[in-house]
């Protein structure tokens, strides 16, 4: 099936198998491998991207469902050498260790801050509840998002 969408501001036209997952489309057709696959079942959040501004888990969406939409992946956040404040926050506050959950976690955090620019610790924890991290114990992630909240 033919699909037409915009990824990180670039128009993409592709012919894909109807069963192809959005995450495989991003990773394998567009070579945007920053979006990771952690569970294939919408449970871990590693594959989170923004679809028309909303955080979605791209492992349980089909590429054809994204037809006509605008997608932002982790690769689309920095402007040259200038990181998005959430990316900067993760670096400053040691919000990552192995980095595998990080792209999805950052996308979830961006949505959280779009909805609530000054979240409490509890609201941050709630906002990233759908994204699992096995390394950090989340505390530095909370601090990374607090860092970003002050700068957005």
């Amino acid at each position: 099936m033919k699909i037409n969408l915009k990824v990180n501001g670039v128009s993409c036209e592709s012919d894909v198998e109807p069963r192809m997952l959005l995450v495989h489309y991003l990773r394998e057709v567009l070579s945007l491998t920053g979006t990771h696959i952690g569970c294939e079942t919408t449970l871990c959040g590693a594959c989170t991207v923004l679809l028309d501004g909303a955080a979605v888990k791209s492992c349980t969406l089909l590429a054809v469902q994204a037809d006509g939409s605008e997608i932002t992946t982790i690769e689309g956040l920095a402007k040259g050498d200038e990181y998005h404040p959430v990316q900067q926050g993760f670096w400053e506050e040691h919000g990552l260790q192995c980095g595998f959950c990080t792209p999805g976690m950052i996308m979830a955090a961006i949505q959280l801050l779009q909805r609530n620019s000054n979240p409490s610790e509890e609201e941050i924890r709630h906002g990233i509840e759908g994204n699992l991290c096995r390394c950090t114990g989340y505390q530095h992630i909370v601090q990374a998002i607090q860092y970003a909240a002050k700068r957005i």
Partner: protein
Amino acid sequence: MAVGKYVGTRTKRKEDPRLITGLSTYVDDIKLPGLLHVAIVRSVHAHARIKSVDTSAALKSPGVVAVVTGQDIGDKVGSVPCAAQIPGLKVPRHPVLAIGRVRYVGESIAAVIANDRYAAQDAAELVEVDYDPLPAVVDPLKALEPGSTPIHEEFKDNIAFSTKASSGDIDKAFRSAEIPIIKQRMINQRLIPMAMETRGVVAQYHPGDKNITLWSSSQIPHLLRTQVAVMIGLPENHVRVIVPEVGGGFGSKLNVYREEALLAYLAMKLGKPLKWIEGRRENFLTTIHGRDQVDDVEIAVKKDGTIIGLKLRVVADLGAYHQLLTPLIPGLTGAMIAGCYRFQNLTIDTVGVFTNKMATDAYRGAGRPEATYLIERVLDLVSAELKLDPVDVRMKNFVPSAQFPYNTPTGLTYDSANYQACFQKALDLVNYKQLREEQKKLRAQGKYMGIGISTYVEICAMGPSSGMPAGGWESATVRVEPTGKVTVFTGSSPHGQGQETTFSQIAADELGISFDDITVLHGDTAIVQYGIGTFGSRATAVGGTAVYMALQKIKEKGGKLAAHLLKTDSSDFNFEGGKVTHKADASKSIPFLDLVQSAYHAKSIPAGFEPGLDATAFFEPSNYTFPFGAHVAVVEIDPETGEIQFKRYVGVDDCGKVINPLTVHGQVHGGIAQGLGQALLEEAVYDENGQLITGTLMDYAIPKSTDLPWFELDRTETPSPVNPLGVKGVGEAGTIGSTPAIVNAVVDALAPFGVKHIDMPLRSEKIWRAIRAAG
């Protein structure tokens, strides 16, 4: 080693820019021309004879290149290795694809190779396996019984090994107990490591040179290379292992797995590059599990709370086959059972049994969380029995700080510690006395607050080679490039711990140059000298020390050249501020870059001086290190629902000298989270047929952001005398310290109901039932 410009300071990680932008390369991100994909057909039975494997339909499926079974491979690929050497250990054959029999759900039976991952998966569904099911051996205690069906036909029973150890006079100690012997069985449940990145392998054969390149998500690139070479029969120097970015390990990638050798062999046989990426379901079923012990303890004590003797029996469920270190893990429990305490009389019986489950092996802490959990629960059982404060009982039994180095009854020598000071700091931080007062008041109001303590010691920096199957040293090469930039090659294989940063801090301080001028490379056997890898909280204490030792060689050589260039006899120079300056005469100084260029241009070097400026060091530690700490959890339990709420979580850890407080905190946070996961949430459950019923993230609960409290951390700093950096290691500390603190807090909260012990995980339902049972 003094705090330098970088060492000891909060330094942001070098690794992060590539990780926060999505530009790093994990195994699944690797693309090669003509890459084929592999899907594995896995057993649906825990124990069965394989009557036949019909691959005909799969072979006809679109895009399929080949289907390979265990019969096809036969003995062309060697057994998956086990490094354990225990007298009488039974080591079953461990094929890369099952031959004739399967012994756990998920065991690999056939490999399907196709031109994309969807086609491979489709065809894998079409492979018909005809099974003849056999009784599954699931319960480790039943596996010990004489009538238990042997899982491996070549052995008469399911006992893989049995060891006994003792120290002091246990009979006398038990006779002199002043109160009846306290006995408790404790279950240390099976856990699933669940690194966020599953395993994955890419293999590419280069027929012209008969070389293979293997990319794998591993903690041990060099050991993996040696073992895969042996398994597939290629000379070791024809195998290159590359470990790209690794998305977490926690011990689960400290191994040699079937798929690593299988893909190497198939890539060679088919002459095509192959990729296999483990699915999450496969990860639950076929990546090693952790813990899984049934532990029985008996304790003899005096009325004042002094422990005089302890008997421990460990029954360890090893699963169906041995992975690399499977039979060695339970021994670490016995080795560390004395904890921070000075009793000398003990006996330890350890039995490892085969069951129809995935192998257990090293999972963060590996044997030590079990030991710490046992002894810290014991201290609380003793306190409860004698109605003493658990703080007092601990203080009474601690090894005094003047007694270090301290020889334990289990044959270890603790390097350095001050348990009392560290514990006191935690008690002050949490305001312990006031908490006990508050607890009294709350109890009077029908509220159930619990305070749980754990004072732990762990064995780290694995380790001297005498105690390690494949050597316990680590290697480093420091190459000062002609432009004055420095490349560090480490045999450690960091996968999230941040050693690119911490090793750069060490190198920058030692050479007196900028942190930004250092690059740390690791994880490629064609680039890095032989190394051991990252596990057992060893990377900084052993690998970092190797870097430090190589730097000393550079400075020694550089000093000789500087003496020649500056016309002085002494080669005693400081490397500081980008300059190399004579220690006694500051007027004799040369920019670091000029010195480096002199070494490479070699136009004015002393006679016999080797040009260039690089050095390699292999550091062999003289002992393990023994970090320690004190964790205090404060919880409140809702008696109506059994729900636990954290009120405080305080940890004071001592990992010796700290290179980077930021990453040390990160390690402790993550460790506490995993320890909390075991205490409250996680449990791998196999049903009576050997089916893993917690085989998805829906059923196996790893901690979410909302499950965790705010960690209030502090530290004491007792340098280790074992290495010149004074560092001890911190990767596993949180996992070891947190579990007993949390369980002790919950049991303490439930004391008014007469609850003395509950087995983990302490889910609300279990707590609710314990409260109801107490009436």
